[in-house]
């Protein structure tokens, strides 16, 4: 039988390798928040003639309307993306009219989002609170559902630790993507993150369920062996379910052309993969560590990994 849990510290190291660089980038550059969370206005414009005016000209129009901080990106397919401080509907209409007059062109508004500064921050805070409350509720539910096994509380806590691991991976990914490809953390990212959280917890419960079942059958077996056995038994299912969900997302990735949706798909792809990965390589190993109270050895002579 494959020994997965014996190499648990190796897998922790791999996870650390995945997370730490991203967190360092986040610590230095911050999370690349979009206007959804920071407030501001984002315009996505095309021009009927196909010509895209120079960023300087657009910049001037913004300044004339008292908006001092426009960040203007013009993409290759004739789309102009302008991010600025918050403006109301009236100002936006004035701005578009001004552009039409000045460039003698018809402006096509593909998308215009305006978010007040307080609203954005509130959404971010409230989302965090909602996720926190959900995590707590899940811990309580798992504790109840696993009340037949010893230390049922641990299962809930381990599921949430592993879920936080997945969230951290996704956040680091966002940080790296922000640095390299100009990704922004927007409400679509929030949706992806919520999907990852939902999937992650669901997957933990499936693996834990096998441990729950086996612990009633093999009462004499040491916990580590029991847990390892359970993981191996559910491995085929983990792979197949992962193939199914990820397959979907890979296709979405290939077919959705847009930049925003591409970021969404990649986030989901990585996050959902992590949902399965962390069940096997994070949640179950932590259960074992907790069972053996291994932290007592961590600061001893040597952090030995028991075979």
């Amino acid at each position: 039988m494959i020994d997965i849990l014996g190499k648990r510290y190796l897998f922790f190291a791999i996870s650390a390798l995945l997370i730490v660089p991203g967190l360092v980038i986040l610590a230095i550059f911050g999370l690349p928040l979009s206007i959804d969370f920071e407030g501001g206005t984002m315009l996505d414009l095309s021009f009927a003639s196909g010509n895209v005016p120079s960023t300087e000209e657009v910049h001037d129009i913004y300044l004339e309307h008292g908006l001092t901080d426009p960040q203007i990106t013009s993409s290759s397919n004739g789309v102009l993306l302008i991010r600025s401080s918050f403006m109301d509907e009236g100002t936006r209409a004035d701005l578009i009219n001004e552009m039409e007059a000045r460039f003698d062109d018809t402006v096509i508004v593909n998308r215009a989002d305006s978010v007040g500064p307080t609203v954005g921050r509130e959404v971010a805070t409230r989302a965090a609170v909602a996720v926190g409350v959900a995590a707590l509720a899940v811990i309580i539910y798992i504790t109840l559902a696993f009340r037949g096994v010893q230390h049922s509380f641990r299962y809930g806590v381990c599921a949430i630790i592993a879920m936080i691991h997945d969230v951290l991976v996704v956040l680091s990914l966002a940080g790296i993507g922000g640095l390299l490809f100009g990704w922004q953390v927007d409400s679509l990212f929030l949706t992806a993150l919520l999907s990852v959280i939902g999937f992650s917890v669901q997957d933990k419960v499936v693996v834990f369920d096998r441990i729950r079942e086996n612990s009633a059958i093999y009462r004499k077996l040491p916990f580590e062996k029991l847990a390892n056995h359970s993981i191996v038994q559910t491995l085929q299912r983990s792979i197949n379910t992962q193939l199914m969900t990820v397959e979907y997302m890979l296709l979405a990735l290939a077919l959705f052309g847009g930049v925003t949706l591409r970021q969404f798909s990649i986030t989901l792809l990585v996050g959902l993969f992590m949902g399965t990965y962390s069940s096997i390589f994070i949640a179950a190993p932590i259960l074992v560590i907790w069972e053996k109270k291994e932290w007592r050895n961590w600061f001893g002579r040597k952090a030995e990994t028991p075979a």
Partner: protein
Amino acid sequence: MKQRDFTFLGLIILILAVALVIVLPATSSRLPAIGIQRGADFVLGLDLRGGVQALLEVPPEYDVTPEQMADARRILENRTNALGVSENLFQVAGDRRIVAEFPGLTDPAAVMDVIRETGQMEFVDLGANPNGLTAGDVIRTDHGLAEQPDAAEEGKEPVDDTVYHTIMTGDQLQEVSVGPNPDQMGGYVINFSLKPQGAQIFSDFTRENVGNYLAIVLDKEILSAPLIQVHIPNGQGYIENFTVETANELAIQMRYGALPIPFREVETRLIGPRLGEDSLDKSVIAGLIGFGIVILFMSLYYRLPGVVAVFSILTYGVITLALFKVIPVTLTLPGIAGFLLSTGSALDANILIFERLKEELRGGRTFLQAVDLAWKRAWPSIRDSNIATLITCAILFWFGSSFGATIVKGFAFTLAVGVGVSLFTAIVVTRTFLNLVISVLNPDNRHLKWFGIYE
């Protein structure tokens, strides 16, 4: 095959038939009505069909009651309906916010104007009007002192420090109509008549103040300040100097009353129709191709049970989509993400059962025993994992609806509906189909490879 399987099979066929009738577009009306509207289209969210969404908020300096919010919602809805904007939707979100949605709208300027105005009409006594106030000037009045100076936010300062007396407000208006100005070619006027009580006040005032000025004021801005030439006993009058558009817009505000509380827009989103259509097409194509691959994989890997699973998943899909239409669920991109994720968990339930089935078959059970055991053993994990997801959905839904974060709400709702249906298909459909297939084909050990077992 047991009695129970037949009962379930009948149930499944019935549900599937109803769901199919709902989902398939109405090509003819041969089918008798069953109380559910047939062939209605899916309700598409703004991100898929284009439109405008606005989040309106009561500024923090005002106290609000839930009744005021409900009134404001109704008034806003009436006002925009009168503008001829179809399918507009206003929802109170939390304590002091209203989400407004206008599907298909591309130019929100007129709508936003109507929304923004609180529409507080006042009839104000200007006395002899020593300062020569005219239309466009902003004044202070003794009505609702706390709200003043309201218009200052828009950069308009009251022209003088005098606080004028308000003799009555817009709630005394009985009827408002727009008509051409009899005295001015091409101009329009708003004719109004007052309720009996208002007419009495108007009559008394005009009798005693001939030669003085009466201002008609909207949100502290003077619309018109006519000289009272004669006593007006019948409570009828008009305000002049409008174009047909401005007259109509103002008449709507007067007709549907003042908002009990002012709002400001804190968030607006405009999605062009082209972008929405594009997103919809792409997600449908991705969904179809993804599903094709799933069918292929399930059939090749799990063989006979895989084929059963495909039917089970199809049942899941049809029922879920039918529910989306009936409830109705507004489909947005996040909503579709929720649907795809729940499809994943429906597949997971089948995979869990089939992996168990293989284990039991390898253990030497008969086919019927193995199906029974596989289902029983897989059930706790399916149940608990899905309930954990439902808990998450419930909390996210609450968060989304109390906050006007429709994106989160849509995701949580479609995921929850999908997970609920996937529980049903896992409990009933896959199991019944498997029992059915086994009792019809009656396989023995030579047929283990039908179940993906080769040793």
